């Protein structure tokens, strides 16, 4: 009974209802405007919601997350510019549909399928998370360490230019997380005698810099890119279309949840995998893939929204974020005094059921706003870039300042912003840095606990891993991920079909 009350608390409290709606609405536009990303929005927003209660803050972020993952599809369909990385696969068939005058149909179909995908993700979250967290209580410290390593490696391996760059970015993030006083022995680490460094580097300043400032600086390169406008016809999709593709939608949602639930991997990879899956199982598409096949639109759109629910699973059960956005949200939970991990569900079941119910609500609002307001939409995405980027930077500066009311955090943010800009230009990903700084404490603590319980003996530690089925499996996955990056594997099996180029050339 209690669970039911928590589940619907955001549905009946007007302020939470409003914030979720506002989040979903804003999320759609943030996702749709190229250059603005959900990660950027959520990381800037965190600093503004410090003084709030945890539920309103979560309601707003859940709404933005859900709406934003969907919103990217709009510009992918209308302008052939994916508004967010998760919509890259959507543009492959969505834009050809729009060119044929079926933009409205494409938007309608992607909205409904995103809604169904989102719902599947949340249902899996509600069912799987309690079971996983019961199981996770039995995890050894070394297992936590291995899962964290796996998460960082997966992001590094799948999204970057090369594994070495991903590994560097991850290790750099973890190292940044160790700056300050050691929580166990109070020894100073990388403080260089400075008092302000003793509390460590603010992970929020780092996130705003890496996701906000660096992205805005990169986008200034394309200030004058002109978009081609499309006409929009009827937007509510045909019932027959939905029914015919329901099986594919559910399969793609399944892929989405699983990829989303893997620590570190999110909607972008899920969407590309689902697109590849749709191509393989659709034997006779009405329209060939790449030329406006509905299947090629449905699969990535349902998968990327299903990945949202999936990404919350490791975050709420293990304290390990499922993707970059949940890495930011986990930062927000820490600030609000919550400690995500297996005990969260036992100690604070209200938080869990609130999140589940609120995500469903965000999904519904996404459907409503997705199927309406298309006129305002075309106006808003025409917002001049010369105003947009200065505004993003202004909000980034204000956001960083408001963390501790100090200009020092603004300096950190700017420094990491410029550094992130160079990293992106030279083919490094910034997501592993963020995952690293979030997971640093967990890895350091668990490493030390694990090695102390083995009396400082490395052979005993290795034996412990190899003799425990769970640890051995996790180690196996890590070795496998590393192995798939070797030249031999790539020559033998080809590169994984996770890039647009790879898919296009298939």
């Amino acid at each position, binding site marked *: 009974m209690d669970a039911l009350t928590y589940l619907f608390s955001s549905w009946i409290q007007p302020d939470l209802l409003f914030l979720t709606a506002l989040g979903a609405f804003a999320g759609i536009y943030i996702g749709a405007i190229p250059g603005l990303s959900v990660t950027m929005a959520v990381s800037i927003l965190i600093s*503004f*919601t410090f*003084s709030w209660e945890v539920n309103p803050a979560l309601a707003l972020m859940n709404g933005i997350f859900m709406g934003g993952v969907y919103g990217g599809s709009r510009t992918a369909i209308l302008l052939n510019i994916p508004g967010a990385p998760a919509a890259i696969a959507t543009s492959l068939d969505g834009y050809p549909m729009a060119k044929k005058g079926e933009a409205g149909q494409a938007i309608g179909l992607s909205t409904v399928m995103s809604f169904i995908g989102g719902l599947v993700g949340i249902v899996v979250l509600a069912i799987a998370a309690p079971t996983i967290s019961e199981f996770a209580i039995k995890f050894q410290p070394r297992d936590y360490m291995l899962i964290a390593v796996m998460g960082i490696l997966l992001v590094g*391996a*799948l*999204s*970057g*230019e*090369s594994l*070495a*760059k991903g*590994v*560097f970015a991850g*290790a*750099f993030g*973890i*190292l940044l997380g*160790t700056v300050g006083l050691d929580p*166990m*022995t109070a*020894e100073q*680490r*990388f403080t260089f005698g400075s008092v302000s460094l003793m509390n460590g580097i603010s992970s929020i300043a780092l996130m705003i810099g890496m996701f906000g*400032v660096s992205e805005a*600086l990169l986008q*200034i*390169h394309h*200030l004058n890119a002109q978009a081609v406008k499309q006409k929009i016809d009827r937007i509510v999709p045909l019932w027959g279309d939905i029914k015919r593709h329901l099986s594919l939608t559910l399969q793609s949602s399944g892929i989405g949840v699983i990829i989303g639930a893997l620590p570190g991997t999110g909607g972008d990879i899920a969407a590309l995998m689902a697109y590849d899956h749709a191509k393989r199982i659709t034997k006779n598409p009405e329209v060939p893939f790449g030329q406006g096949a509905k299947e090629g639109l449905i699969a990535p759109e349902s998968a990327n929204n299903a990945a949202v629910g999936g990404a919350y699973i490791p975050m709420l059960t293990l304290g390990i974020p499922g993707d970059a956005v949940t890495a930011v949200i986990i930062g927000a939970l820490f600030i609000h005094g919550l400690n995500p991990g297996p005990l969260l569900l036992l100690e604070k079941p209200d938080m869990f059921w609130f999140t589940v119910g609120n995500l469903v609500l965000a999904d519904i609002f996404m459907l409503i706003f997705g199927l309406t307001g298309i006129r305002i939409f075309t106006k808003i995405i025409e917002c*001049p870039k*010369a*105003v947009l*980027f*200065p*505004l993003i*930077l*202004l*909000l980034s*500066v*204000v956001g960083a*300042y*408001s963390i501790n*009311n100090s*200009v020092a955090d*603004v*300096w950190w943010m*700017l420094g990491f912003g*410029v550094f992130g800009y*160079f990293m992106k*230009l*030279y*083919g490094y990903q910034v997501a592993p840095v963020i995952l690293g700084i979030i997971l640093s404490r967990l*890895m*350091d603590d668990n*490493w*030390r606990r694990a*090695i102390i319980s083995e009396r*400082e003996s*490395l052979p005993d530690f290795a034996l412990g891993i190899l003799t425990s089925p769970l640890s051995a499996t996790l180690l196996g996955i890590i070795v496998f991920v590393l192995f798939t990056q070797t030249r031999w594997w790539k020559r033998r099996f080809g590169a994984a079909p*996770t*890039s647009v180029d790879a898919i296009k050339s298939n």
Partner: protein
Amino acid sequence: MQEQPTTRRPGEVVFTLILLIGSLFLLWQAYGISGFSALSSAGAFPMAMSAVMVVSLAIILSNTLRKPAPAAVLERLRAEILPATVVVFCGLILVYSLILDWLGFIPASFLFLLASITFLQGGRFKRAFGLSVLSIICVYVVFRLVFQVVLPEGLIPERAIIAWVQSLFSAGI
């Protein structure tokens, strides 16, 4: 996975070298925390991570050096890595964060918006002025009044003004 470019990007070797030198410095610093005293010491984990950084950068450097150098480095550096727009814009942000504390949020942000919008759209001062005023009002209402974020006050006694307006309303009631 992104496609690897066939030639080096301009400045790539320098960037990798800077990262490598930085990582070696951090490794030395990590060693200084507690040396090789124990596997569970405060310095062991940072040392392992900085060692991973050094090794991965060494691999990246060797891969980068194997690719042919790009042609017309300086021109491409200016066009692809550091276009004038980005450099000037960075300068504007720097000035903004320097004057923020002293001048206060409203005037500093207004000047920043005015300068950067004028610069990015290449002139049209009147339009930039209007857009800056509009933006600053929106940001102020949303973040200061609705979200109650504390912003640097600086020269304008903004809190006193808000209190005065509130007292006017409460007196009216």
